[in-house]
């Protein structure tokens, strides 16, 4: 299931309907709890679009509370909270400043859909992961052997890297097939993605 959470609405409903800026740690913690509450209601596997379009300002403290602490719960190698994948949508240049900083601090990465429609990986990513992620973005969905062939790497390396990307919740795994979080073609928006065959059918 693909669902969209408007972060600005969560701010107004969870904290104060007069606020339009995501600043301070207590505010960030409240917003994260509001997002978690919505996620709790959508099942054990989900792709969630976190929409920052209506957020004016995001400071470092709030980015740490909302983005980093949210992701950390779902990318744990040991016992992830649930299988939830995120696409961060509508982030401005100033949001990126704060988010890049906290991703670096926690060695995290995320998928962002920019205003021009192009998806982008942000955060801490090694060369292999970036290559395979970009290949997946082109393919939409594929088995490891197909990814290896397209990326020009060994099957074993492709398989291992896809598993790493899945653990980090940067690609979706469905049995033996991996699915890009961003649909099959560059420029596709999240709304378009939701309507494509690339959307992960097994997520519920």
């Amino acid at each position, binding site marked *: 299931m693909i669902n969209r959470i408007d972060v600005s609405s969560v701010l107004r409903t969870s904290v104060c309907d007069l606020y339009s800026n995501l600043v301070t740690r207590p*505010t960030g913690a409240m917003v994260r709890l509001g997002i978690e509450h919505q996620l709790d209601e959508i099942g054990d596997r989900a792709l969630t679009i976190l929409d920052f379009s209506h957020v004016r300002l995001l*400071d470092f403290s709030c980015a740490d509370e909302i983005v980093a602490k949210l992701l950390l719960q779902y990318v744990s190698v040991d016992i992830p909270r649930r299988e939830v994948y995120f696409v961060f949508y509508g982030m401005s240049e100033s949001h990126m400043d704060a988010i890049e900083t906290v991703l670096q601090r926690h060695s995290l990465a995320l998928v962002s859909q920019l205003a021009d429609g192009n998806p982008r990986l942000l955060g801490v990513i090694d060369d292999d992961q970036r290559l395979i992620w970009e290949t997946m973005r082109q393919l939409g969905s594929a088995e490891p052997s197909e990814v290896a062939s397209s990326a020009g790497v060994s099957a074993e390396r492709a398989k291992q890297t896809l598993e790493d990307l899945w653990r980090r919740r940067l690609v979706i795994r469905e049995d033996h097939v991996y699915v890009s979080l961003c649909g099959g073609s560059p420029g596709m928006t999240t709304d378009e993605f939701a309507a494509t065959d690339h959307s992960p059918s097994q997520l519920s």
Partner: protein
Amino acid sequence: MTKVIDVPPSLDDQSFEQVFEALAPLPPDEKILIDARRTRWASPYGLTALLTVAQTRLQKPALAIPESDDTATYWARTQFFHFAADLYEISGKIPRARSTEDLNVLLPVTPVAKTEDIHRVVDKIQNKAQAMLIGGLHLEPSATMRFTMALSEICQNVIEHAGRGGWVAVHAYRWQKRLGRKVVVISVCDAGIGFRQSLESAHGPRATDRWDDGMALEETVMRGATRFRDPGRGQGLAGVRKFIHDWTGKFSVRSGTARIAIVPEWDGDVPMRENLPFFPGAQVQITIPEKVVP
């Protein structure tokens, strides 16, 4: 007997050291009079620090306000007297602030004691900051958000570390003598526990030959140390440092007996001053200069 402390004619982060020096040897219960009659100008640092001075005294201090009408009126428009009236016994006629809308006062003196205060500060400053940073200082449009982020992070430090409320003010003016350009200055001052005690509250004093206010400032401001064990902490000041560098701005933090500064080329300050007269809490100043357009 009341001890009289003279306020310099021009009151900023540098000249305020004279006030700290006069205060340091006095017991906190000694009655003092802050004599600002001859003061003609005060930066946001001067105004917010004057309020924190009153907070450190056990006996309500007295304040003689500037004799110059222009100066006293300006202080009224910055809302200084609105808060000083509770903290000081004021002598002299406080002018009525005919209007608090002043292009140069981007943010009047504002208390910072709880999270809601920071939301209020951020909401209040955005439009004015945009006009001043882009129109006045010729910075790129994205500077407004980064400037507000820096302001938010510095204010949060007061709430998370000081243990008591502080004050923030943001003014814009032409810095004729020192720079010959316009500047925007953020000042955030508190009289709380300070950087050294904040770190000690979690980690204890460091086992080193030199553990003092200067080292605590190095650890926190330059290396992002914090009393919280959460690995996500300490990013705020690091982010502020980055913005300051991008804008060739100046960032200084005074706490206890030391003062650390990130000094741009246009300023002759030193990166670290130690053995200053002790004053509680932390006093932070950010100065963003007008960009030189070729």
